[in-house]
């Protein structure tokens, strides 16, 4: 059927074409973007919030905003990073709404103790270990790390998003990295 074949063609088309059509008002193309990027956006939001309750609301709001503000997307080929920026901003907004002030205690959190109680050490694949370690980070460190390593934000941008100084951002990131390296080594 011509309809089936076409739908398959649209689903396989690159971002430039699909986003170009969506910007022009093509709902079918917009639906392709929704299918294409929902998993990544959900994953990112979950990592930022370290919770799953608000994830779908945030992703939905992101798509609604994207539809409204498509004219701001200059190059349709860059729709992926454009969407990720919007969802990241909304995730941070949600975090800051729930926690207006950065918790200073977060910054003082000690790295994992070297004298953890004896237990069976499982060998974990690198990614799994990383994911698990990330979940254990204090909130501020986690947010910095996600913005940097998953969102590709610069230090200045992180500072701006979280309303902290650049040096605070650097410090949080260094602590996060140290924590994760030690944690992941403990699992090797």
């Amino acid at each position, binding site marked *: 059927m011509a309809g089936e074949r076409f739908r398959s063609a649209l689903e*396989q088309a690159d971002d430039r074409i699909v986003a170009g059509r969506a910007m022009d008002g093509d709902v079918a193309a917009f639906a392709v973007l929704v299918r294409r990027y929902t*998993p990544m956006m959900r994953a990112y939001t979950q990592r930022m919030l370290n919770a799953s309750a608000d994830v779908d609301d945030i992703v939905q709001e992101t798509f609604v905003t994207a539809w409204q503000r498509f004219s701001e997307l200059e190059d349709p080929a860059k729709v992926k990073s454009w969407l990720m920026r919007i969802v990241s901003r909304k995730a941070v907004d949600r975090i800051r709404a729930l926690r207006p002030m950065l918790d200073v205690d977060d910054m003082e959190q000690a790295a994992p103790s070297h004298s953890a109680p004896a237990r069976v050490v499982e060998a974990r694949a690198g990614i799994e270990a990383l994911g698990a370690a990330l979940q254990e980070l204090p909130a501020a460190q986690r947010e910095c790390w996600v913005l940097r390593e998953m969102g590709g934000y610069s230090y200045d941008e992180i500072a701006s998003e979280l309303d902290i100084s650049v040096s605070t951002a650097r410090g949080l990131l260094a602590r996060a990295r140290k924590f994760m390296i030690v944690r992941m080594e403990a699992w090797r």
Partner: protein
Amino acid sequence: MTEEQKAPDVRQLGLEPSDRDGHTLEELSDYLEAGRLPVDPSIEGSPGCQLALDALERLQGLGGQLIEADAAARPEVDDSWVDRILSGIALDARAGRRIPFDESDPSVDFGITEGAVRGLIRSAENAVPGIMVGRSTLDGDVTVVGEPIRIAIEVNAIYGESIPTAVARLRAEIAERLHRQTDLTVTSIDVTVRDIQRISSAAEETS
């Protein structure tokens, strides 16, 4: 059988300041992110720094993969989710400018939206197997009847079809549809082929 739990020897990772010959972890992070350039002999010459850099590099590598791994581990996006999104958007947000028809009767005002016209342009590809239409632009003041308008379209060509033939056919199809459905004065239809696309269709897969 006893299990000997060995706490990781953190000193072996070069994470303590004394191992890094005065270099902070932030410094090493930045150095790594700069691609280890310009070369800093004091860092490169320090075994503790090398260990720390190795660990940071491994971490960074995994970090880039995490989002893909997370996304791949998630369930498929289903129709009800797409429906939820689509039912929350206002389609006329992309309606664009209102394009008047050339109707002289002052008691009526006939028009067509730019969004509808772009939809018409896209639909022309139904008659041209070798083309998939992307973004289209109407250059000129479409709100004034008789104003010369230039249409610019980005397309992908489908692998296996003759591109010049397909493009010519697309132009003709668009011109006809616009002529019938609007009063636009179209001076040119510029088609830019961006990419060649392969399509796997159900028909091919079952043959």
